[in-house]
């Protein structure tokens, strides 16, 4: 089943092309590592997939619908890129923020909401700080709260924009294990934007290397064997990336 499909996707900011002719498909259960240099269009692609940005040309389908028209938003869990986007003085508790993840899909029963929030708080090990204000937390704790918000609705598709950037090594390891569990045991489809091209190979089933257009899309082993990629990255870099993967 195709979860995401893009066809000849082009996005321009003014006259500057940000994405050119991007065509790819994501199948149910895929775990995609979306990598590329700064300014390569990764976050722009994510915004197009979510229907937050209209492309200049081409199309994006999400669960078989046009991304802009897709209504079943409870199927999607999203973690935006920047952790410092919100007002640090925002008077909101951890539990209140996690509960925002349940808005998509309408008003769930109070009991169900409470239960889901409790489960997420425990899973992300933030039960003890449930009544603390978001601005009082460290960057890593804030990131865990936002991850809990993305997961609380039990989404079928998880879109994570640099989720591990503020996490300490232990939390990071637990977080990646959790994602692997969700992907392997529950069939959750995952797209993760990351700069850790070597590290992502340990978890992701496919790699999408973007630099305004698709440079590579396929399995990690295929990436490691690819002569084109050896030319693109240089064989030494490719070796280092693939060494980390294995």
């Amino acid at each position, binding site marked *: 089943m195709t979860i995401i499909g893009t066809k000849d996707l082009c996005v321009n900011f003014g006259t500057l092309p940000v994405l050119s002719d991007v065509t790819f498909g994501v199948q149910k259960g895929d775990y995609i590592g979306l990598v590329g240099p700064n300014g390569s269009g990764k976050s722009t692609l994510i915004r197009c997939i*979510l*229907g*937050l940005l209209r492309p200049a040309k081409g199309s994006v389908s999400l669960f078989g619908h046009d991304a802009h028209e897709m*209504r079943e*938003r409870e199927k*999607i869990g*999203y973690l*935006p890129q920047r952790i410092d*986007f*919100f*007002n*640090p*003085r*925002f*008077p*909101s*508790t951890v539990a*209140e*923020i996690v509960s*925002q*993840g349940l*808005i*998509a899909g309408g*008003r769930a029963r109070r009991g169900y909401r409470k239960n889901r929030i409790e489960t997420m708080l425990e899973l992300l090990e933030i039960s003890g700080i449930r*009544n603390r*204000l978001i*601005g*009082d937390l460290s960057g890593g704790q804030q990131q865990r709260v936002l991850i809990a*918000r993305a997961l609380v609705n039990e989404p079928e598709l998880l879109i994570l924009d640099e989720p591990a950037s503020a996490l300490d090594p232990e939390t990071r390891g637990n977080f990646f294990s959790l994602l692997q569990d969700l992907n392997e045991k529950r069939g959750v489809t995952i797209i993760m934007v990351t700069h850790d091209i070597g590290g992502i190979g340990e978890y992701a089933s496919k790699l999408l290397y973007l630099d305004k257009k698709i440079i590579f899309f396929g399995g990690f082993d295929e990436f490691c064997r690819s002569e084109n990629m050896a030319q693109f990255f240089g064989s030494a870099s490719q070796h280092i990336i693939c060494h980390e993967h294995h």
Partner: protein
Amino acid sequence: MEILEFLNYGFIRRALLAGSLISLICAVLGVILVLRRLSLIGDGLSHVTFGSVALAMFLNVYPLAVSVPVVAIASLGILRLTEKAGIYGDAAIGVVSSVGIACGILLASVAGGFNVDLFSYLFGSILSISMPEVVIAVIVSGAVLAAVYIHFEEIFSITFDDEFARASGIPVTRINSIIMVLTAVTVVLAMKVVGIMLTSALLVLPAVTAFQNARGFRNAMLIASLVSLLSLVTGIALSFALDLPAGASIVLINFIFFCCAFLVRNLTGSRVR
């Protein structure tokens, strides 16, 4: 009870009823606006209100009939400028408010000045509020409170993280437009309570007072509402007892509450970062 003697006067009861409702909705909207870094929208829209009142006087029609649509359009203009013209909220407010006040000055000049009438709008006259204005305040307050109650979760989500809200399928543009129109109508009504010059205070002061010690978004709205109501009632009572201007008294009581909340925060160590 001598202390409650002032309640025997009809104009005081009208002022308390309409003023309480208007201060309540100012507090609720103020929490949303301040968190979205649109604190000065009250100031900007009140400048537009000045222009619209001048226009109403120029045309010789009832000021609210002109102010409500004009200020609502200006409010939506601020929203569209921030969304489409790629400028920050404070700059958009600056553009709209300066155009509003320039129009007012121009109209006043063309008409040869409006003297006392326009002056009363600058400084407010809650004690002279009429029964039809009380009815309007009841209707608008009901609409604002109902809209915030119905869309509370969505408003909270948009205020905290606009992009996540959009990704969750919340109709952000529609809800933003509703908030901006309701803010515009509220600012026009607040002009009657504290005047054009001090309208912004009714939106900002209760909110920043609440933020000193609030433990949650809903909690912040409740504290801001309580502070705003207490300031209104105390301000009107003081104004009656000491023959002081009501608008300025209400604003200064609000400021005293802010100072108290600030002290409590620092003495108890709550919200220390």
